[in-house]
């Protein structure tokens, strides 16, 4: 029940910052989603760093799906691929419902490049990782900071500016779209 409330709140707040959110029941759906939006937008490369460490089986599955669909999947040395990356694909570590914020450990340079220099960012968010507010994540954040070096990113929506006549414009330096796929494995 509480988890559900957090999801609802996250979705509501995400809307306010132009983040698209859908709920999925298994990781496979996220792969298909990423492939589909990449192709639809005319992209051909997905960067999914960090997935290997998290789940190597999943990575193999993703790779197979990408091959099937004619999409290139890259996972490392991303610096040499800047300019070619269409979709950055990550699994978020935590999230804050109150502000629709993803918390992404970005200590690896590849994760940073995938989430900053791709045209769009697709992030899987395990439903159990959503907390009400940032204060509730204090311990988890501190842990990361106490095991340096570390680079922890809060991401709430797509890159934006209002620097020209205060007109809100999305996509100035970072990704132009943020897609969050809430993964709730107990739901069918």
């Amino acid at each position, binding site marked *: 029940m509480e988890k559900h409330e957090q999801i609802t709140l996250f979705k509501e707040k995400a809307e306010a910052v132009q983040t698209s959110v859908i709920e999925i029941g298994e990781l496979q759906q996220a792969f298909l989603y990423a492939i589909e939006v990449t192709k639809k937008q005319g992209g051909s490369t997905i960067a999914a760093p960090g997935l290997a460490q998290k789940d190597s089986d999943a990575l193999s599955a993703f790779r197979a799906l990408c091959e099937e669909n004619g999409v290139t999947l890259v996972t490392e040395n991303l610096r040499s691929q800047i300019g070619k990356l269409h979709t950055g694909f990550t699994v978020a570590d935590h999230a804050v419902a109150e*502000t629709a914020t993803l918390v992404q450990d970005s*200590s690896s340079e590849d994760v940073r490049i995938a989430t900053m220099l791709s045209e769009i960012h697709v992030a899987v968010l395990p439903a159990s990782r959503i907390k009400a507010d940032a204060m509730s994540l204090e311990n988890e954040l501190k842990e990361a900071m106490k095991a340096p*070096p570390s680079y922890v990113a809060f991401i709430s929506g797509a890159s934006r500016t209002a620097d*020209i006549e205060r007109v809100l*414009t999305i996509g100035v330096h970072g990704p132009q779209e943020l897609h969050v796929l809430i993964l709730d494995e107990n739901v069918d």
Partner: protein
Amino acid sequence: MISTPHDVKEYRGHLKKALKNTFLGTTLDNFATSYRASRAKAFEGMDLEGLIQEIAQGKDASIPYLEELFTLFKARAEAAGAKIHVARTATEANEIIASIAKDNGVRKIVKGKSMTAEETFLNTHLEKEGYQVTETDLGEWIIQLRGEGPSHMVMPAIHLSRQQVAELFTKITGAPQDPDDINGMVKVARRELRQAFLEADMGITGANFAIAETGTIGLVTNEGNGRLVTTLPRVHVALVGFDKLIPDLQSALRVLKALPRNATGQAISTYVTWITGANDCAPGPDGRKEMHIVFLDNGRLALARDPVFSQALRCVRCGACANVCPIYKLVGGHNYGHVYIGAIGLILTYFYHGRENARAIVKNCLNCQACKSVCAAGIDLPHLIKEVYRTVLEVEGKKPVKNILLNRALKDRRLFHFLLRRAYLAQKPLAGGGDLIRHLPFFLSREHGFRSLPVVAKTPLRDQWERINPRLPNPRYRVALFGGCVVDFVYPEQALALVKLAREFNVQLEYPMEQTCCGLPAKMMGESETAREVAIQNLKAVDPTEYDYILTLCASCGSHLKENYPRLLAGDPGLQVKVDQLRDKIMDFSSFMQNVLKVSSEKFDGHYRKIAYHSPCHLCRGLNVTQEPRELLKTAGLDYLPAKDEDVCCGFGGSFSVEFPEISAELLKRKLDNVEATGAEVLVTDCPGCVLQLRGGMDKRGAKKIQVKHIAEVVADSLKK
């Protein structure tokens, strides 16, 4: 390059020019309006006051220990592979950063937005040393290309129109840009700056937080340029003021809760980045980032030890104090600060950029309290502005003649009141028998002609008091009236209205004759010693224990008595108790009617029809009274028509309107325009100073004139016969 006038005369020239810039005036006005709404929405359902208190207390607790926090930070950050430097001055900071660049064979540099780097004029220094520096925040990039400084701490290019940006980008790209295609222009920046990111060897950022317990820096941005600046180049330098040191993550998260909401009305900025140590970076030595953090003192550590000014270090650079400032709204940031802008800019300029740059701008404050009421860190900005003004006067040792005269007059009540009585005779030929002076006396120049001036009353209130104030046999309350100079000598009729109501509701009024000016004008002119002396005189004249309440018709006197007396007389054991008692008993007219007398609407029949209301700064923010006057209007059977910006200053500000007549006139014009737009027949307010300004301005308007009255007058007139 930024240049700020060093004297008021030159400064007024700049202000006049800014007032003619209609784009600026409209943009900032729209911004102020939408900011209010989005801020309110962002904090909806939160205990905002409590949060501000917590932030202020947290900051106050760490300010005395900045050096200890630094030691801890240094140990942690060094253990994580960062190199820590301390710069005592701005020049030292620039030199340290230039030498880091040199040691690392850097040629090209990208920068994230940093007010601290603006403070040290880092770009100028690095460019002189031969480095190519590119600002990557869109607004900063635009002003860098134009060779300007920021005009707002959060939105540096807010003073520019889309046409100006299009023109600039046309020049940069060589291809014509459509000013209405803002998205297209943003994409130009995306393209151009992407190249700069890829080519840079070094990235420079500021930091919003330096967390001591972990040696972490926190960066808050929307565009994401800060992330690229800290990721792509092999060297990262963060330039951080000592004031950004904070003990732990919890304190940082607390500030983060308020910062974006207060800055732009966003629940959170798009990217918040926490960096601890030298991270993974392919082109860096051994695959690690070359990470440097330069802590800037530049007067901060001395400021931290100052009993009055240390609270300026609480500032979290949200920019809100500019957003709501009525003067900022008229003239923009280039005319309202030096590098730092808005209320906090008037203060910090003195400490970081010197007296010359602070001298003129620090006078340009109405004391309207709008900034204070939104400050994320609860800084008493108007008070500190006056304290800076006072310090500048003291340090320069050259008091303006008007200060010397004011001091002499105020310290001697008899002399002061004698002078006021004499004024009646002096002005007679100018007034031509009316109650307003339409043509100015010779010593005021034409700029002051935007309002008629009131004539001093023939018989001041104090001379009529015994005659007009009846003795009641069994009064409900015994109440002292603190008149204030304007009611006493200019508008005694406002007190007469009060007397009428007091009789009706069985309240015995008293007018302690030894009372004098509350002393606010002295404080406004930086004369705290005089302010202190008159405070003591008034405390001797009005002993709070003798009365149930102490009533004032003047919001400015009321808030000065309540808020500044304790400050002026702090540490004076004999007076402290009396000050506290006074504080407990001071009340404004509307609160007294509504909350104490609880007057019933049956007594009134609403003598006037359509009423507009102006909410005086010192009532709504000084005394926190907002509901009572509006409710009282309803109680009195009056038809209240809300106007736009009711609680924005009318531009009076006491001596302010004499020092900066153009600003005062423009604020007055906007106020009266808003009032006229309601279709009201009478404009009501509860401060005689505002009445003076509003009535004088209304008199000068050609069209159908709206009457201006004190709320006590319309309520007394509405009593059933």
